[in-house]
């Protein structure tokens, strides 16, 4: 099956810094989402982005489907950005079953 690897696995930032999180996938995908899992375990939808670029406030994402990767940019990080970031991909048409990546654990220091 499809493999989804994220890097870096862990990241520590000072508040106000910028960061880039990467998601590589081993096969072509039809759908891709980015999630933030907060310290209480809740998964929050960030982007649905099977291709192209989207921005939402301090966050933006880019997916280059032909090269099988996606990037999540966090600018001017805040302590509330701490948690785990997951990308998830779906490659089987019609089922919308998502395979989750390995995750990036982010800690933002005040």
């Amino acid at each position, binding site marked *: 099956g499809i493999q989804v690897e994220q890097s870096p696995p862990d990241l520590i930032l000072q508040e106000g810094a910028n960061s880039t999180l990467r998601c590589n996938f081993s096969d072509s995908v*039809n759908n891709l989402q980015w999630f933030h899992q907060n310290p209480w375990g*809740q998964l929050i939808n960030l982007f*649905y982005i099977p291709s192209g670029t989207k921005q939402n406030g301090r966050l933006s994402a880019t997916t280059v489907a032909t090269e099988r990767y996606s990037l999540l940019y966090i600018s001017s990080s805040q302590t509330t950005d701490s948690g785990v970031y997951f990308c998830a991909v*779906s490659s089987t048409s019609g089922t*919308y079953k998502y395979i989750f990546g390995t995750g990036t654990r982010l800690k933002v220091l005040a």
Partner: protein
Amino acid sequence: SAVISQKPSRDICQRGTSLTIQCQVDSQVTMMFWYRQQPGQSLTLIATANQGSEATYESGFVIDKFPISRPNLTFSTLTVSNMSPEDSSIYLCSVTYLDMVYEQYFGPGTRLTVT
């Protein structure tokens, strides 16, 4: 998006017992899924809950261990049977909506500890 709730939010259970987790959505959805997240790990899909028929299980998960029901478009249950400490995880349901069939939205999760 609609509200997705799960009950219980957390529980501590003894080995050998079973726990049923409920997932309720306040509007009709197309698909419902159940995931497991073991401590410090990513999410793994357990099964797709099919309305009115048997769930579709992923490799490594079986109906005897994780029976699932979905009697209507807004409700599903997952039972973790004959529990062992290895079943200690967060269990999450997710849904896709009629007007956003490609995006999954997650409930708050059920944190299970088996002693």
